């Protein structure tokens, strides 16, 4: 092994070029699938980084079961990670994979239906034991019975090769088995002409405290690479054409990490400390994790005893003069509802993030859906308006996190930021912004006691933010209806009408800050597709494809859902038909019909999976 480890990649490529054909690609979709303990998420992540470093755009879709370690070999325990990367801009993780890397029979069984016709299967034969075949409900071994004849099948005993490479490592059999994902990664890096030296560095860093594991994983990685290079199995390797990505510094980022960074940025840009009070819930918890390791910033993190306490501690912190943040997903959002109403009544600035998942109830915790939109807009008792914004991609979560707090402090209101499991866990390259280019968030704490009235309002209808501890301004706030100026309890009928009206007007007034709505495609025409959130990429690609086919189709993607942009009603009228694709049963559709009284065509999917470009493209063709 040692000679292989020291051979440079360039040398290896030169050797390979003589004996193998190198096929140039513009685009490829690869899915890594195995048991939830096989490390497929890690393999996918590392592969994404390797292609990102080559300047390619990519988009990923991790898809994993809600069981942490489901029984091995079972159909329900399969965990997958799909990446699409390309020489051109990428907007989705791809409809159908070109390549399946499968670690066991169950992974093959559950993912084969998605593979493109004639696609590549790289199979870990070592896992195709009788027991595993039975668990995957195969009567005969599909690798041997000819049933995969329509695909390019590459059989590699990854388990055996990894074990052989590591038989002198001193590691236990169990630990050796855990290295096979790095063998698979090595194979894929070679096959797609990516160097492994950076990955070796990363492994050394990742396992700095456990050098024996670092060594083993490096050995597995290079063994995989060497195997792929030496074997006669592969007649072709692949090389992505050079990409024309914008120059600059990039990192791979998931939506949850981007949101966490955005919230720290909001704190830095406003000079106001950030407080996050949250309760762990899939798929939102990573935001809490990320922020918890940033205590050297002006960040306080608090794992509350429940979702309600997460929300309430956030209210307490906002009252104390912090940027209050709580993060959750659907069921947690339901629990926070009453306290969110209190925050509306108190008019305190805070942000609630709902990383949506399949519902109702516990639903599909690890799968993505957009079915909490109406809950966000309407789901509270009383007339209780809350601004709602939605991220459209992982890196957009950074901008939305800042935007959410900008609205919250300017208008003294809680703000709901909707993302979803797809955005939260998916990664894409992020052009790192220059800190100096990020606009400051202006925050004024009132300290002038003279003439102070707790519910007096500024030109944006926002009341003053006063920190307890400010002399001479002691006052009480609460959930009971309050007097229009003093904030004292008031049951006066006209006062209540006035307060409901002003709370509604305040939130509606945010529309005046929104930039003109961007329309991709013709200014008027046959069809407008209007979406929100994580469906952006699928809609974008479907529209591009339809436009290329000569269709008159435009796209509007909404970031602000409450209030909606002021120009949206006029835009809707410029198209003969309007299509609203959503990963729910028609929630934005309801809002748009209610506001604009326009006929809409719905396209709805609730399968725990994102839209395929084809889902939307096919519907476009039916409509125009």
């Amino acid at each position, binding site marked *: 092994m040692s000679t292989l480890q020291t051979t440079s990649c360039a040398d290896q490529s030169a050797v390979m070029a003589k004996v193998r054909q190198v096929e140039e690609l513009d685009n490829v979709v690869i899915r890594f699938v195995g048991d939830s303990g096989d490390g497929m998420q890690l393999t996918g992540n590392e592969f994404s980084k390797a292609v*990102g*470093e080559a*300047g390619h755009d990519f988009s990923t879709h991790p898809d994993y079961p809600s069981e942490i370690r489901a029984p091995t070999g079972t159909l329900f325990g399969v965990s997958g990670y799909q990446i699409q990367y390309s020489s051109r801009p990428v907007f989705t993780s791809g409809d159908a994979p070109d390549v399946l890397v499968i670690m066991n029979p169950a992974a093959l069984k559950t993912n084969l239906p998605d593979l493109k016709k004639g696609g590549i299967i790289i199979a870990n034969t070592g896992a195709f034991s009788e027991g595993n075949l039975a668990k995957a409900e195969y009567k005969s071994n599909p690798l041997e019975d000819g049933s995969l004849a329509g695909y390019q099948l590459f059989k590699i005993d990854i388990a055996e090769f990894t074990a052989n490479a590591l038989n002198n490592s001193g590691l236990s059999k169990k630990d050796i088995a855990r290295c096979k994902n790095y063998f698979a990664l090595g194979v894929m890096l070679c096959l797609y002409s990516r160097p492994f030296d950076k990955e070796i560095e*990363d492994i050394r860093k990742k396992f700095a405290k456990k050098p024996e594991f670092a060594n083993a994983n490096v050995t597995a990685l290079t063994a995989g690479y060497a195997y792929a290079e030496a074997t006669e199995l592969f007649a072709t390797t692949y090389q992505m054409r050079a990409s024309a*990505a914008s*120059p*600059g*510094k*990039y*990192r*791979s*980022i998931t939506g949850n990490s981007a949101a966490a*960074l955005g919230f*720290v940025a909001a704190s*830095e840009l406003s000079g106001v400390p950030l*407080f996050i*009070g949250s309760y762990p819930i899939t798929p939102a918890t990573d935001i809490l994790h990320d922020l918890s390791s*940033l*205590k*050297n910033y002006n*960040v*306080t993190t*608090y794992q*509350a*005893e429940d979702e*309600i*306490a997460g929300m*309430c*501690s*956030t*209210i*307490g*912190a*906002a*009252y*104390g*003069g912090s940027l*209050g943040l709580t993060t959750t997903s659907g069921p947690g959002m339901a629990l926070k509802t*009453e*306290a969110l*109403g*209190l925050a509306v009544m*108190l008019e305190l600035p805070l942000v609630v993030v709902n990383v949506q998942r399949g519902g109702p109830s516990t639903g599909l915790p690890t799968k993505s859906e957009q079915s909490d939109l109406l809950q966000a807009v309407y789901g509270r008792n009383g007339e209780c308006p809350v601004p709602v914004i939605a991220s459209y991609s992982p890196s957009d979560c950074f901008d939305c996190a800042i935007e959410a707090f900008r609205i919250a402090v300017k208008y003294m209101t809680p703000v709901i930021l909707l993302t979803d499991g797809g955005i939260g866990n998916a990664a894409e390259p992020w052009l*790192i*912004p220059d*800190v100096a280019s990020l606009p400051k968030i202006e925050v004024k704490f009132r*300290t002038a006691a003279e003439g102070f009235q707790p519910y007096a309002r500024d030109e944006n209808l926002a009341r003053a933010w006063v920190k*307890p*501890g*400010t*002399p*001479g*301004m*002691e006052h*009480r*706030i*609460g*959930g009971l209806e309050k007097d229009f100026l003093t904030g*004292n*309890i008031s049951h006066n009928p006209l006062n209540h009408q006035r307060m409901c009206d002003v709370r509604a007007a305040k939130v509606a007034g945010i529309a005046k800050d929104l930039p003109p709505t961007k329309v991709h495609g013709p200014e008027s025409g046959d069809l407008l597709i209007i979406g929100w959130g994580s469906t952006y990429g699928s809609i974008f690609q479907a529209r591009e494809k339809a436009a290329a086919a000569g269709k008159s189709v435009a796209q509007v993607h909404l970031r602000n859902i409450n209030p909606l942009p002021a120009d949206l009603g006029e835009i809707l009228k410029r198209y003969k038909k309007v299509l609203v694709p959503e990963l729910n049963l028609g929630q934005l559709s309801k809002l748009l019909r209610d506001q604009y009284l326009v006929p809409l065509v719905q396209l709805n999917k609730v399968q725990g999976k994102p839209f395929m470009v084809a889902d939307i493209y096919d519907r476009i063709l039916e409509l125009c």
Partner: protein
Amino acid sequence: MNSPNDIHPLTKKDFESDQDVRWCPGCGDYSVLAQVQKILPTLGIARENFAFISGIGCSSRFPYYMETYGMHSIHGRAPAIATGLKLSRPELSVWVVTGDGDALAIGGNHFIHAMRRNIGLKIILLNNRIYGLTKGQYSPTSEMGKRTKSTPMGSIDRPFSPVALALGAGATFVARSVDSDVKHVASMLERAAAHKGTAFVEILQNCVVFNDDAYGALSNKATRADAGVFLEHGKPLVFGKDRNKGIKLSGWSPELVTLGENAVSEADLVVHDEKAANGGLAFFLSQLENPQFPVPLGVFRDLEEPAYEELNKAMAEGARATKGPGDLGRLLNGGETWTIK
């Protein structure tokens, strides 16, 4: 700035808001409000640094009557809101006023976790053993068999003791008083104010409308000396009009004894130790109830432990010491990056 402290020493009047107090005439809450307003000026804390947070219920109207910062929030959630406030602003003196329904029924979870964390909140629970604001239903502290509008045939719920619950949740300061004994209420509030971490004070409080005389024996001058036993650190549990009754430990159980009878002397009685690291004695005391035993009044437990907000602050300081202060540019450019030229 116009801090009243700068102009004149604070008085009770400085803590009275301009809002009319709207509890029923004769409600025990009045006396507690008066005692709180009386002791706050003595604590050496500027008025603007007090915050009173409450939930829902009669007792939760409390903040409106205090000329401090305050929030009347939602049912049961005051400890959770106060925790966020205290964590973000540890320099404030944060008080929670709650009731038996607010703290123990709908807000039970927040209550026990506040106790467990030992966060610097002063929590006053006004326990009238009934729901007042919803007009008379049984509460988690109502006695079994209690007939109320929602239990016309008598309650089949077993009540729990707020003191026992707080102790079970690991509270470092637990005290009990009764509304009619204003001096004792004041002394318990002072002790709570001086405590580091969560300080819990149960005040047995009379609801004149829906549960009048629930603590009659403890309030009535003729009976109170026999119905209650004052806990004093290092002193034996002696009580009674003639100071001749006591509590003795018999196996693991309490035994009521009379001094001088059967050769029992003070040396045989349980001696109170509020500093005992082991919670056994405090829990033993929390089980004493009328009518079989006198109700203990005073400080059950007072331990010095690090407060949550101190630990939190130390953690942040530690992070800054090891990682250096936050730098947004460095953060955004962290992780594994690549450059496209």
